[in-house]
């Protein structure tokens, strides 16, 4: 009665090399097989040794970093008064009508930038994710470059992308949209590909055993299982885009970001507070929409 019997390798990417079209002969590498002669004791030992090694390295790294950056709670407590002063400077947030009107305009602009960037970012990001995910099994000469492209997209800071696009299309929201799109594509590609890799392996094996092609397996067995999680990541990326646009605004892309940058540089803390509240509300609303859709999808998957 119990299911998932023939346990599949826990890391699906291990099995993805299973069937290839590229002509070369490859053995289906099932993780189960890996140390073909390896006895029980040897494997145990190797595993627990690695686990300890990782742990020791991790602890050493944390200690080294805490020491190197001079982090200390004493200084934090000591400096609390100064921080409180800054935070107190935020109150009361400014609420005159003119400001509110311009904040409203900035919010609309930010929304537009974030949605447009979400559109492009999602299209590119999902494509990259499909190419990258190990269990979908695109050939290595496609999946590796896709991985690189995604890494470049997300590791170049949005600010620098913005600079490039300002040069290309001039100042204004469009430059921001392109910059955030690339960044978003890189981020989504990474997270979505990991979601794809985390689906239950039994149905994937079942579909693959019917002789389905790699693409068919992806569309029929992997994507339907990951669908809800992907949707929620896309909505999360929307939130990230809103925050990115706040950073990019500093270089003249408009929206709340630009207003925030101006207020910050002119030390108008009360205005800053109003803008931050606007940003917070925006993120909260997106978060709520995301929760609402998650709940709906939970009930209404096809």
């Amino acid at each position, binding site marked *: 009665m119990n299911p998932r019997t023939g346990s599949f390798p826990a890391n699906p990417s291990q099995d993805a090399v299973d069937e290839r079209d590229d002509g070369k002969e490859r053995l289906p590498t099932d993780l189960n097989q890996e140390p073909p002669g390896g006895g029980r004791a040897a494997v145990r030992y190797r595993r627990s040794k690695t686990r300890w090694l990782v742990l020791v390295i991790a602890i050493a790294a944390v200690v080294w970093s805490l020491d190197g950056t001079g982090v200390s709670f004493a200084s934090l407590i*000591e400096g609390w008064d100064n921080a409180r002063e800054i935070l107190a400077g935020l109150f009361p947030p400014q609420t005159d009508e003119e400001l509110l009107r311009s904040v409203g305009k900035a919010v609309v602009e930010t929304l537009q930038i974030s949605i447009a960037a979400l559109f492009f970012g999602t299209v590119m990001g999902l494509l990259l994710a499909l190419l990258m995910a190990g269990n979908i099994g695109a050939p290595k000469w496609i999946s590796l470059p896709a991985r690189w492209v995604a890494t470049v997209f997300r590791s170049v800071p949005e600010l620098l992308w913005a600079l490039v696009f300002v040069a290309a299309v001039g100042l204004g929201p469009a430059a921001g949209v392109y910059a955030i799109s690339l960044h978003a594509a890189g981020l989504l590609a990474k997270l979505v590909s990991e979601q794809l890799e985390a689906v239950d392996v039994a149905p994937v094996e079942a579909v693959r055993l019917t002789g389905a092609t790699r693409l068919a397996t992806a569309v029929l067995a992997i994507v339907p299982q990951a669908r809800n999680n992907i949707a929620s990541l896309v909505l999360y990326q929307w939130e990230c885009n809103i925050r990115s646009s706040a950073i990019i605004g500093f270089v003249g892309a408009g929206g709340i970001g630009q207003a925030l940058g101006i207020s910050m540089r002119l030390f108008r803390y009360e205005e800053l507070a109003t803008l931050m509240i606007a940003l917070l509300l925006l993120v909260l609303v997106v978060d709520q929409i995301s929760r609402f859709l998650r709940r709906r999808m939970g009930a209404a998957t096809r």
Partner: protein
Amino acid sequence: GTTDDPGAVNSRGLPETLRVGIIPNMAPDKQSARYDPLREYLSTKLDTAVELFVATDYAGVVAALAAEKVDIAYLGGLTYVQAKAQVDVRPLVTEVDKETGAKEYLSGIVVRDDSPYRSVADVVAGKGTFAFGDVSSTSGSLYPRMMLNAAGASCSASAIDKCPPLSEVAFTGGHDATAQAVVNGSADAGGIELRILHRLENDGKLPKGRLRVVGTERVMGYPWVMRSALGEQAATAITAAFLEMNQPGLLDLLQTTGYQQVTDADYASVEKHAVELGLLTA
């Protein structure tokens, strides 16, 4: 760490550790921006430990000054008056500009060489788009704004991003971005620090003559400021340290030929304009 007791002072009225904040606006070209020679110089000269923080944004340094986490700092003219509104600071010295040979340097309004505009008045009359640099830049924001107003525009004090009759104003975040914006046509004119413009041209980042200067204004140089709380003794010592600086290598690093003393009065006009134009909420 930065946690040394700020109250502790040595025999010469200087803190045990002098914390210095720098925003790089100028640095020699061949060498990456490391100000270690400056730190060593100040340390020997003042006979105290010196900690150097290089930040790339004024806001952080001003916040640190205000929170008494930094003792002396190199700021722009406008940032100085902004800092003054939050914490008791005083200017000590400014560098001699290589171009003007004086304490002042030049801020200018530029257009593309194929533009019909010949003067700032033309720019205003053209009702086009205008690019400022960083909002809190003296030469990239405050003075260009002043020049525009002098030529008939009415840059508003309340809404920073409105300058009628100009159709649109943008903040590019930096001088090079302003130059870019004007060159690639996304702005019809822009305000920029001229020595930076010239350096861009010398470095080949911009074709020489691609931008035409249609108006200039002299701006009081970037001051080194000190928290007044450190006291007269410290001010004297630090001022002396800068005035006595004569090592060619070090002066080269700081892109100057020497330092001259300044007082708060030198920045009175900056402050006045800043208040007028809404860049300083006094």
